[in-house]
């Protein structure tokens, strides 16, 4: 690990230790924030008890569905739009403004449309994620050198085969960026929706614990989410670096 890496580790550990000290010393009262060590302990108990496993599974399933759906639809729409410049031009303002719009504002509408199940949450996650996939797929396909498409034609590949075996593989690193964003947005969308209104899931349990003054469980779940998301994002980042290493000029 580099010097920056070690420093970073030191900074993060330092902050955690500082928080621990302040909490234990009573500078930060326990009904506001509990010490990190207590958070970790509580998380261990929570996971071991299995009481929240159904919630965890529910949330992760919804996140997974949102990711999968946004990738499939996003790549398909991105590929389609890239070959249809007129449609793409008309939709361009939508791409530029999409993430400015508070997507959560549509949540009540989705609940009215789909009822109080898991679908509205998956829908929010999907809606947030799909645009990132479309934008990055477009970006990647834009960068395919024309000579590769010509080479595909010389080999007798039609439009679909060229997209499948030449254009999309070339654009894969950019599509992967879209994938990373899809993962992040799916988590944000699903968990945010669970906070607002839901009957199960990690977001719901955090909200429930908060309302019942159960700081131990609440912080345990918060720690769980944060640790999970950070780990997933870091793993994706590492995976991406390995994939790109092949393509980098030596």
């Amino acid at each position: 690990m580099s010097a920056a890496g070690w420093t970073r580790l030191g900074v993060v550990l330092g902050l955690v230790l500082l928080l621990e000290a302040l909490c234990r010393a009573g500078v930060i009262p326990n009904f506001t924030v509990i010490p990190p060590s207590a958070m970790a302990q509580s998380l261990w108990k929570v996971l071991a008890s299995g009481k929240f496993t159904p919630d965890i599974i529910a949330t992760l399933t919804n996140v997974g569905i949102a990711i999968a759906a946004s990738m499939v639809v996003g790549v398909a729409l991105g590929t389609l739009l890239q070959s249809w410049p007129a449609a793409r031009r008309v939709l361009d303002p939508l791409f530029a403004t999409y993430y400015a719009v508070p997507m959560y504002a549509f949540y009540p509408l989705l609940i009215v449309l789909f009822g109080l199940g898991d679908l509205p949450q998956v829908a929010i996650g999907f809606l947030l994620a799909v645009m990132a996939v479309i934008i990055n797929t477009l970006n990647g396909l834009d960068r395919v050198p024309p000579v590769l498409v010509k080479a595909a034609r010389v080999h007798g590949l039609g439009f679909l085969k060229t997209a499948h075996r030449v254009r999309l593989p070339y654009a894969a690193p950019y599509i992967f960026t879209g994938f990373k964003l899809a993962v992040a947005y799916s988590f944000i969308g699903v968990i945010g929706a669970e906070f607002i209104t839901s009957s199960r899931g990690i977001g719901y349990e955090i909200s429930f614990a908060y309302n019942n003054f159960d700081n131990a469980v609440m912080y345990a779940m918060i720690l769980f989410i944060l640790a999970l998301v950070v780990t997933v994002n870091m793993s994706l980042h590492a995976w991406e670096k390995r994939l790109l290493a092949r393509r980098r000029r030596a």
Partner: protein
Amino acid sequence: MRAGAAPDMRWRDPLILVALLLVVWQLLYLAVGDVALRSPWVTARSLGTMLEDARFIPHVRETLAAFAQGFIIAMVVGLAIGIPLGAARFAGEVAEPILVALYSIPKVTLYPVILLIFGIGMPAKVAFGAIHGIVPISIFAMNAVRNINPTHLRTARVLGLSPLSLTRKILVPAALPEIVTGIRVGFSLALIGTLLGEMFGSQRGLGHLLMQAMSLHNIERILALTLLLVVFAAGVNALLLALDRHLHRRTA
């Protein structure tokens, strides 16, 4: 867009898009019916009525006040973090992955913590908006400063510019486009944060009204509020985007 296209072409495409969205909305309404939707026209009328209602304005003011404060804090803190990190290479390298990680965590997870610290009310909402806006503003500011062409700095030294002149004439114009992009993103995210906070922990404001309308199954109101928020957010973003593009074009 071909170079030299007529100026009215620039407005034609967004208008077509808006028309398309309205058509899709109307079709959805025809398919789903009054049980879950209202038509665009009814929604617009309903919004008009709402805006004239004296009881409605305080909520708008509440949301705007919370948002404005949160956004300003996000800008000040974000720039205060981002600019020095961009200038100090090693510190920036250390901090960047941390900031990126903060960017991708669902900040909504931290809301209960904020409520515990600030209690329910305006300070909490301001904090929600602020934490959403700080991270992108600082990341973009950091990159903006980092990417200032070192040749510009050397030229300034050769010309003997004072630190103030250097900042005004070289640093600010060079870094401004990326900083404005960050502010634009921070604006949108701060709005989302404020709204989210209101939806989940407040008794006043547009977000709260939205949740109230949902629990009362008042579809017209849900749609009118959603429309208002979407138009506001998209409208301001479009303006900021025009500014953003103008600045980038100058330096490209």
